[in-house]
């Protein structure tokens, strides 16, 4: 199966590829992100939301301690801007070994200025549950970061607010991403086999516009073992559909 690069045949009107940053790489590899990213000047993107399904981690793990997350966020593209500050929320799946149980968590994070993943627990988080995540960062200069996660299947939610302005996003990007998470040894966990993760309703907001991720100037990233195009592909996004709002990310490899 030919997998990369993705062909840009989709049902939506494909926007012109222009960025306010001199750095723009459409369809480029990365070490840790697979998904779609809207790009602009710092301060552009303030809100984001997406619905994902808690995946069932399949098969034998190629390495122990596999950990992946599926999230919506604003900021954090350190290729485009510096300092990059990502405000994000989503779902994390972790498995320590092939026969080990799968652990799912819902979380928020502001990095690098606060801490790693912070639990935002829900009434339950089972494989197959639909989870809606919403974040905003200084939306219309309201002076706060806000995180909201809802288990749509179980009809429960949780939220968190931060008011320290040093925690605001760089807001140069807005994105929906499947990620292999990092650890404090400076490395990355193996990416668990999540099969296909559907990002539904990936909506990114500026202070004046609410639209699908595919309807802004955007780029996509696929994940490889070493972050280069010659590395082994770990995950990649499929075409954006539903008028710019939906796209899948496919798992391809673990380490």
């Amino acid at each position, binding site marked *: 199966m030919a997998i990369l690069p993705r062909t840009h045949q989709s049902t939506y009107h494909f926007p012109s590829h222009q960025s306010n940053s001199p750095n723009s*790489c459409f369809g480029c590899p990365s070490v840790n992100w697979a998904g779609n990213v809207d790009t602009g000047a710092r301060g552009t993107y303030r809100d984001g939301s997406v619905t994902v399904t808690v995946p069932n981690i399949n098969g034998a793990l190629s390495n122990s301690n596999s950990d992946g997350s599926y999230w919506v966020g604003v900021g954090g593209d350190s290729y485009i801007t510096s300092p990059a500050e990502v405000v994000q929320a989503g779902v994390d799946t972790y498995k320590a070994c092939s026969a080990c149980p799968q652990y799912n968590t819902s979380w928020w994070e502001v990095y690098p200025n606060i801490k790693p993943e912070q639990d935002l627990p829900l009434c339950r988080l089972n494989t197959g549950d639909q989870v809606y995540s919403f974040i905003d960062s200084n939306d219309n200069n309201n002076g706060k970061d806000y995180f909201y996660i809802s288990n749509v299947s179980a009809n429960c939610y949780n939220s968190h607010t931060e008011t320290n302005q040093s925690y605001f996003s760089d807001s140069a990007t807005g994105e929906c991403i499947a990620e292999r998470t990092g650890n404090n040894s400076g490395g990355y966990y193996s990416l668990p086999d999540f099969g296909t993760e559907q990002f539904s309703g990936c909506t990114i907001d500026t202070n004046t516009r609410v639209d699908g991720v595919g309807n802004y100037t955007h780029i996509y990233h696929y994940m490889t073992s070493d972050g280069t195009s010659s590395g082994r592909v770990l995950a990649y996004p499929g075409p954006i559909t539903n008028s710019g709002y939906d796209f899948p990310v496919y798992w391809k490899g673990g380490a």
Partner: protein
Amino acid sequence: MKLHGMVLVLLPILLLTGCGTNDSSPSSTSTTLKPTVLQVLRPTLKDYGIPSLDRTVRDATAVQRLYAAAYKLPAPPSGRINCPLDIGLVYQLDFLHDKTSLQKMTLQATGCQFLFLDKHDVRASDYAFQLLFSKTIGVPSLVPGQSHP
């Protein structure tokens, strides 16, 4: 006399090993000789059109300032981290005293932007350190073409 002799033998060893504490300062060899030269290599990143960079900094004061700043960085926080986008761009640093290599480090230019002092000592770099590094080696930003506030 015997006890006195043992103390004389053990004291320098204890001082050198930091009495078992988690000392975050440079190793004893490195403290004896201060770095005077910094060699920096940034390998090419073809996918992003980023060329290689090879710089040698001979301003001993600037080199020592950066060296000290590196050792003052904190360890990364524990727990799972959803890092910013990591495109795999790194800077390889070699701190030398004249021509003798004292310490090699690797700085991730993107992603979590960790600084590896060696295999087992990882630090979380911050924006102030990244600016100092950029200034020391004379580049406007760690990633060419990056926008800044």
